[in-house]
């Protein structure tokens, strides 16, 4: 089962992260961190707990503003046009962002509608039929969610919920995927399906940045980055800079 993926992203853009520093709750996390991802590229964020993998993802998503430095898309700083950047990003956080009261399908459709990615499809989904969204149909098929589509998210297991959240990312059509521990709770078949989706996405010119500490295959030519390798230079000055 492969997803037929046309070249989705005709104008290739480069994501650059320049000298960002972040302190959270007054605690210095990392400083002077720089990296870049080319169109079709992949970046793996590795390292121990508390090293700042999730923080890097949140900064790149535009959810968290760094103390210094900036993130740029095609040379333009994302903070200058957050709405445009939001349209490029599909973010999978620690939490699945599913509403228990909605079905798996409705969850994905609602999220895509709010992100401006699809018609609401309310009437279709109310009748329990697959909606109009072909990309979502393919994502559900890929992650073997079709039989679960009409079950309330409250009934799903942790791994099933993770798959629904992943389907939302895969169907988003966004060029930049930001995945925070995407494999948590997934079985081997689902991990393989995710790897296929990532490969197709990259082939179409999309980018993937994933924080993961298992051997998720992001495909050929992926780079690796450990935010823990960018400490604030001196603990003492870090204290002052984080304070001031």
């Amino acid at each position, binding site marked *: 089962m492969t997803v037929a993926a046309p070249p989705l992203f005709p104008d290739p853009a480069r994501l650059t992260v320049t000298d960002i520093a972040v302190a959270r709750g007054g605690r210095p996390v990392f400083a002077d961190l720089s990296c870049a991802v080319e169109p079709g590229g992949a970046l793996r964020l590795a390292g121990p707990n508390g090293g700042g993998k999730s923080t890097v993802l949140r900064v790149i998503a535009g*959810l968290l503003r760094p103390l210094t430095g900036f993130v740029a898309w095609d040379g333009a700083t994302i903070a200058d046009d957050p709405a445009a950047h939001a349209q490029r990003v599909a*973010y999978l956080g620690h939490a699945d962002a599913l509403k228990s009261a909605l079905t798996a399908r*409705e969850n994905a459709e*609602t999220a895509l*509608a709010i992100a*401006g990615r699809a018609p609401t499809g309310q009437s279709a989904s109310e009748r329990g039929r697959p909606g109009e969204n072909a990309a979502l149909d393919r994502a559900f098929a890929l992650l073997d969610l079709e039989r679960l589509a009409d079950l309330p998210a409250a009934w799903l297991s942790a791994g099933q919920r993770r798959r629904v959240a992943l389907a939302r990312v895969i169907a988003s059509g966004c060029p930049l995927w930001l995945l925070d521990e995407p494999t948590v709770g997934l079985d081997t078949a689902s991990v393989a399906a995710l790897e296929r989706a990532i490969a197709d996405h990259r082939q179409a010119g999309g980018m993937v940045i994933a924080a993961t500490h298992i051997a998720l295959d992001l495909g050929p030519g992926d780079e690796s980055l450990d935010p823990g390798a960018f400490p604030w230079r001196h603990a003492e000055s870090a204290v002052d800079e984080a304070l001031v």
Partner: protein
Amino acid sequence: MSAFLAVIARDLRLARRQGTDVAMTLAFFVVVVAMFPLGLGPTPELLARIAPAVLWVTSLLAAMLSFDRLFQQDSEDGGLDQLALSGLPLSLLALAKACAHWLTTGLPMLVLAPMLGISLNLAPQSYGVLVATLALGTPVVSLFGVVGAALVVGARRAGVLVALIVLPLLIPILIFAVSAIDAASAGLSVRVHLLFLGAILAAAIPLAPLAAGAALRQALD
């Protein structure tokens, strides 16, 4: 615009699916109003005198119970991040949340309050004004509630905290609304009172979403 409507549609759909959440708020409204005749005795004149204040204070308390629905769950399940990444400015997101909250809490109270007014022997000429004050006042309650709920995202004891923060800010609404209904019961003009309520609403519609947007920005950081 479509994202704005999609957020409202999502919240309305969630409210419909989890109907008990809304019903509990309204049941609280009814039960607390019923406590007053039981506590004070059923003297019709006394009840008529306190009816405007009882209805308004109780509607404020009931609204306080509903604010933790606004952002708390979204912040816990990661939904707030997704909403922030919808491309919708945070202030408009807050406005959409306020609209959905008003439709699920303020509007039903608007319908319920006259019936509860009957049980409190409210003067017959006051019903129209009661509904008018609620129509002008409850949107302000929802708007301030969104500010308060955005401020307490991630706080301990967020439900109590939001009431402590928001209730003092709503004192002007309470004063103008109750004095309008009192004036109507006494056969006086209510125009000035309603104008004040309308002015507060007109100021709150742009300002409260701005404040709530700033609060959400801080909550995400």
